[in-house]
């Protein structure tokens, strides 16, 4: 390391969130933006998601993952004031926004930023987190790892596959394996309803007659060197296997599609407080974390089902990071942040989480939220004020609801004021 480099906005991660944040930061006036990406190319996970269905909201088109990424990558590459460091692993981030990274040519690099956007994405939950009994043979993969092998590296992980978990990546991989000539024996889901989108159940499983076993799980993995089969059992309401329901399914591969975890080790080195419900940082409507000048967006903040919303959220974070950097340049850092004007948002009845977790009184913004259980005919309320009505809500589909001036009027009339808590709830419509 020779010296410390300086930048206005440092974006950690060059996936969909990082790309949109960097472009938005430039549009909002940041002079110098730096993207730090650990892979050899930009685009993040989109590059391995070769299926279509991306961008329907944003571009009104059904794009594949790489195509979606290429709506952003050329713009980033064409901007001489966005500096992209590839093959670069960020090792630490301080609360004063100093980044330490390693780069194959420059070695250890220190970068001082006026604002930082966290856009590191998430990673997959592994077998270790599930405690499935049985042996430790080869042939057990997370769905995303298998996706990278099949779609980018050119390897087929196996020929007879069982998929545990009905998350979207698992469903997409069920179709992908089938098209590539493997036999997908079953998708097994512990909950009584699928974790993935209904359209993926239809076009990835039903199209290929792949059975989906609900309220079931893998209770044993068989095989010494290589997976030879799995035992699948039905579970009761407490997820306990029901004796007598075991069935043996021969297979050589077990894929796990059992959830994603925001990757926040770096956020924690900067002392960024996390929300245990999302696994990501606590943020306000600007997507600013509780550490001034550090912003977060995309799957590092909360796991999204649609990349369109990742881009949207990243643009908020990028724009606000640029504003923060400009204020710091004008030597009045922090003047725009007034935590005293904020209210806390908390999830209430049938809500798993709501984002942002803090909100400035009167701010007209979109609230992102996810329910805990499927429910029909639902009214979404904010401390008793009706926000929206929905025909149906499902945990697999993130809800986006606009908080408008009229809602604030009702809240203020009800005596709600900065410093207080607001409770978001999903209740049966009267």
């Amino acid at each position: 390391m020779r010296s410390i480099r300086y930048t206005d906005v440092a974006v950690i991660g060059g996936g969909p969130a990082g790309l949109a944040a960097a472009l938005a930061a430039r549009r909002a006036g940041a002079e110098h933006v730096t993207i730090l990406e650990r892979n050899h190319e930009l685009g993040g996970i989109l590059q391995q998601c070769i299926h279509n269905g991306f961008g329907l909201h944003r571009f009104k088109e059904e794009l594949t993952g790489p195509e979606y990424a290429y709506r952003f990558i050329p713009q980033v590459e064409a901007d001489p004031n966005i500096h992209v460091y590839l093959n670069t692993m960020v090792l630490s981030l301080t609360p004063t926004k100093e980044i330490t990274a390693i780069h194959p040519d420059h070695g250890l690099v220190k970068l001082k930023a006026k604002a930082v956007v966290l856009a590191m994405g998430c990673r997959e939950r592994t077998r270790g987190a599930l405690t499935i009994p049985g042996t430790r043979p080869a042939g057990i993969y997370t769905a995303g790892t298998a996706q990278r092998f099949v779609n980018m590296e050119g390897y087929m992980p196996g020929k007879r596959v069982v998929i545990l978990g009905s998350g979207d990546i698992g469903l997409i991989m069920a179709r992908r394996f089938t098209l590539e000539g493997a036999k997908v024996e079953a998708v097994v889901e512990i909950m009584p309803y699928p974790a993935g989108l209904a359209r993926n159940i239809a076009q990835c499983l039903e199209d290929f007659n792949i059975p989906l076993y609900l309220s079931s799980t893998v209770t044993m993995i068989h095989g010494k060197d290589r997976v030879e089969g799995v035992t699948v059992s039905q579970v009761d309401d407490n997820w306990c296997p029901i004796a007598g329901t075991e069935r043996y399914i021969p297979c050589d591969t077990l894929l796990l599609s059992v959830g994603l975890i925001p990757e926040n080790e770096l956020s924690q080195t900067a002392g960024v407080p996390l929300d245990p419900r999302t696994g990501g940082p606590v943020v306000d409507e600007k997507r600013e974390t509780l550490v001034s000048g550090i912003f977060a967006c995309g799957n590092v903040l909360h796991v999204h089902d649609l990349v369109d919303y990742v881009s949207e959220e990243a643009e908020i974070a990028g724009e606000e990071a640029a504003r923060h950097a400009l204020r710091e340049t004008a030597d009045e850092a922090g003047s725009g942040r007034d935590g005293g004007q904020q209210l806390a948002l908390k999830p209430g009845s049938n809500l798993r989480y709501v984002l942002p977790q803090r909100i400035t009184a009167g701010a007209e913004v979109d609230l992102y939220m996810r329910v805990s259980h499927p429910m029909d005919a639902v009214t979404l309320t904010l401390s008793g004020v009706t926000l929206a009505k929905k025909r149906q809500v499902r945990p697999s589909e993130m809800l986006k609801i606009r908080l408008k001036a009229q809602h604030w009027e009702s809240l203020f009339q009800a005596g709600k004021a900065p410093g207080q808590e607001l409770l978001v709830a999903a209740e049966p419509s009267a």
Partner: protein
Amino acid sequence: MAIDTQTDQGFYRRMTCIVCPTGCLLEVRKDADGKLSITGFQCRRGEMYAENEVLNPKRVLTTTVRIRNASLPLLPVRTSDAIPKELLAEAMRVLAQVEVTAPVKTGDAILANLLDTGVDVIASRDMKRIDGAA
């Protein structure tokens, strides 16, 4: 779940719309005269999907072909439009024989008129030429 019911009065099918993430539950009824009535959709594209799904189901195929002189051995591709569902397996066999050479640009035609469908197979990302790569 797609459910087909054949009755004396005609044909009835329930299905999940795959046009967008909303995943509407569609219902199609075909009366004895062959007239279709579709309910459950929230947009025009959903209505069209239901009709096609009963008359001539089609899907966009996304897969990969081999590529030489690139940083990766595979190039992601897709059909430029939906093709009949029953041709998916055959299309996979055809594309397994295809090999291209970098550089490739997003949207480049990789194979014209796939299985006489009038639909092309196009690249869905850029791949730079890397000399010395396999």
